[in-house]
């Protein structure tokens, strides 16, 4: 009988066909959602209204990754949520099967394989790369060395006009107290190679916009990472008459979405020179503030946009003297909730509520410009639902069996559940004589845990 390790047990998982290898699970339990390529068997499984990513991997790795994902969750890292490890699986013939790590599907997530596709806008690409860079820097600030940074291991969510990146695979990750420069350089080196490979693969499959050059993309990632890291952790030195530079550093970091928890300020003995260096920096400056004021859990740029709207509301209603938390509550009930509650039930899977609100604000701005009048939010919302929302594809779970390639064509995946298998139209090729494979058939696995000292003596002798 399989064993479940879970912090939040879900009884609906127990009756699933755990005695079947994951690659052979019946389609009734599976859903074809887009994802990256993987060295292990990975499937999305549906249970009731829940969707989980299942990865078949040996028990040691499954438990390790489960615990690491928990640690990342505790540290408020954007990462998928671990659900359970199912171990002790045996097939119908009594042969042991690898364990399965279950993680929660990230709603409204967008896989990279559809984001860089032909026709993508250049500024969208830059925003995607920036989201990746912010994720990597956040992980490095926490002391997390990823070890396998790749596009396949990242999911994106819309974040107002930008994107937020999430870690979806921590198999090779390690959590340290802090990372050495060598560890960061190593991680960045792996990121360069893997992401270059990912882009070359998209290019080879006709899935990358022709204007994008893989080498240029990875160079951009590295340059932007170095720039951000310097801003987050670099030492700044200035004269004692330029104290305003402390405040401006804090503001620059806030603008990037980070809070300084500890800033090290040192003054030279004569007071002429000041050096500052952020020691502890936390991501989520705006989302934390919005959460504190309204209880809304959003991405960072969505929070920034909503907070701007809250500030505008406060000014418009002339409540600058009123406590911010009181105004925030009023804004929530007067502005935000009436708008997002207007989303018809059948359109709820198109965008998450904070993204809807952001897009409505944009829609209203264009409408006001066009009609040269102040457009009420609810009126804008009605127009947005009709003109925009209704025409968008569902994003709570986007489908992936068909992918768009160059010239607007679409192609079918060979296996809708596994993009690692390429396109259905890729030619089947005849088997090739491979002596290595034949030799491998005779492998004696009894030698796995035991070495034959007599054979070793004979060989070395």
């Amino acid at each position, binding site marked *: 009988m399989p064993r479940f390790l879970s912090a939040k047990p879900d009884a609906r998982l127990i009756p699933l066909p755990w005695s079947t290898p994951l690659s052979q699970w019946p389609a009734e339990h599976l859903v074809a959602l887009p994802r990256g390529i993987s060295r292990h068997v990975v499937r999305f499984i549906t249970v009731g209204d829940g969707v989980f990513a299942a990865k078949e991997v040996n028990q040691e790795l499954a438990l390790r990754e489960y615990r690491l994902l928990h640690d990342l969750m505790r540290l408020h890292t954007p990462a998928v949520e671990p659900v359970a490890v199912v171990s002790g699986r045996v097939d119908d013939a009594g042969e042991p099967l690898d364990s399965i790590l279950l993680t929660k599907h990230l709603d409204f997530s967008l896989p990279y394989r559809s984001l860089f596709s032909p026709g993508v806008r250049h500024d969208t690409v830059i925003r995607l790369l920036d989201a990746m860079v912010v994720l990597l820097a956040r992980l490095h600030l926490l002391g997390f060395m990823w070890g396998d940074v790749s596009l396949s291991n990242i999911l994106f969510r819309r974040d107002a006009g930008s994107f937020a990146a999430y870690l979806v695979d921590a198999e*090779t990750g390690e959590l340290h*107290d802090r990372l050495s420069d*060598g560890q960061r350089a190593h991680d960045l080196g792996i990121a360069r190679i893997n992401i270059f490979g990912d882009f070359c693969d998209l290019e080879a499959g006709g899935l990358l916009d022709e204007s994008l050059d893989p080498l240029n993309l990875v160079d951009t990632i590295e340059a932007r990472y170095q720039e951000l890291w310097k801003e987050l952790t670099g030492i700044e030195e200035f004269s004692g008459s330029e104290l305003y530079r402390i405040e401006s550093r804090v503001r620059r970091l806030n603008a990037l979405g980070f809070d300084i928890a500890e800033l090290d300020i040192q003054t030279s003995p004569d007071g002429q020179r000041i050096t500052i260096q952020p020691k502890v920096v936390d991501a989520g400056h705006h989302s934390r503030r919005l959460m504190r004021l309204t209880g809304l859990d959003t991405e960072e740029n969505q929070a920034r946009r909503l907070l701007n709207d809250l500030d505008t509301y406060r000014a418009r209603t002339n409540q600058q003297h009123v406590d911010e938390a009181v105004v925030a509550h009023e804004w929530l009930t007067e502005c935000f909730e009436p708008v997002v509650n207007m989303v018809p039930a059948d359109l709820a899977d198109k965008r998450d509520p904070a993204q809807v609100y952001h897009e409505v604000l944009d829609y209203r701005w264009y409408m006001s410009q066009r009609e040269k009048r102040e457009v009420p939010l609810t009126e804008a919302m009605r127009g947005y639902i009709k003109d925009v929302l209704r025409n968008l594809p569902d994003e709570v779970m986007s489908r992936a069996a068909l992918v768009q390639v160059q010239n607007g064509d679409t192609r079918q995946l060979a296996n809708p559940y596994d*993009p690692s298998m390429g396109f259905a139209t890729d030619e089947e090729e005849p088997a090739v004589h491979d002596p290595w494979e034949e030799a*491998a058939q005779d492998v004696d696995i009894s030698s796995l*845990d035991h070495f034959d000292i007599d054979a070793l003596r004979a060989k*070395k002798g």
Partner: protein
Amino acid sequence: MATVTYKEATRVYPGADHAAVDKLNLEIGDGEFMVLVGPSGCGKSTSLRMLAGLEEINSGSVWIGDRDVTDLPPKDRDIAMVFQNYALYPHMTVADNMGFALKMKGVNKDEREKRVLEAAKLLGLEDLLARKPKNLSGGQRQRVAMGRAIVRDPQVFLMDEPLSNLDAKLRVQTRTQIAALQTRLGVTTVYVTHDQVEAMTMGDRVAVMKDGVLQQVDRPLALYDTPKNIFVAGFIGSPAMNLMPGTIVDGGVRVTDHVVPVAREVLDRAQSADLVVGIRPESFEVSPTGEGIAMKISAVEETGADSYLYGTLGNQDPATLGDEVQQVVARVTTRTPPQRGDTIRLHVDPANLHVFDKISSLRIS
């Protein structure tokens, strides 16, 4: 290609009360396959990462050839970490899957093709180069991954538990292939594993570590035949060496109620009368005379010509053993193996005895 040298290399993690790697001195020859082995927390991975540039070195230095690389960033060390990732790209050919990193580094097309072809020949992948990876077997995928590292043509290969996520069959298969390839390539390789079977079957030499300290470095057979201390004696060997308490008496060492003859000059090296006597399972014979170390058999496992006998020491001396029951394993060749529940006497050739001082843990025989 190059040698690798650790000189008094030490790594202490902030806040730790002892070094993760303590004054490591190790010379790895040009083209040598060196395995670092030891239990979890012994410092083997940290040692590898010091060489890779991932761990800061608090004191001492690390050299590749005649270059001190202690303060060089990882990318300037001319090393390749193998098997970080073997997800193959579905739309790229096997050749591109092997050579794409060279393209990123600006290596020209002719050179790339040449290196990929050379690696493919070594790996038996020539006929698959133009194919997509879709239909490759697990073993073939592993070889493509090895090819990725080989085409980089580094001075040193570093491998950190590269087989840990493979199934049993692929693990045995890849183990053999890595060792064979390394011999053919002749590139200096440092390989980390917790598995002594992997270490013994793959390495030219094996460095055994414990608690951040190098215990012994030697060829596999030398480690097996002359372990330098009790830890190495117990760690190397499968099944493990029997390590039994003994007391110096006239004529040798008493183990249970039996006196094993040990030369006087050996015993003179002991710091006290308490010793640890080590006997490999295959060094035992069922005594034809009724003389020898008593063993009470609890299980018998027959494997071809040999039988493995599992049990406990008989006639234990409570003064030396207390309540602890000493487990014993013996591999004997006999047509009629003893049965479960029997008590037998085991004989050992004094030449096959390993004698250790209990206080220092060091070998004295």
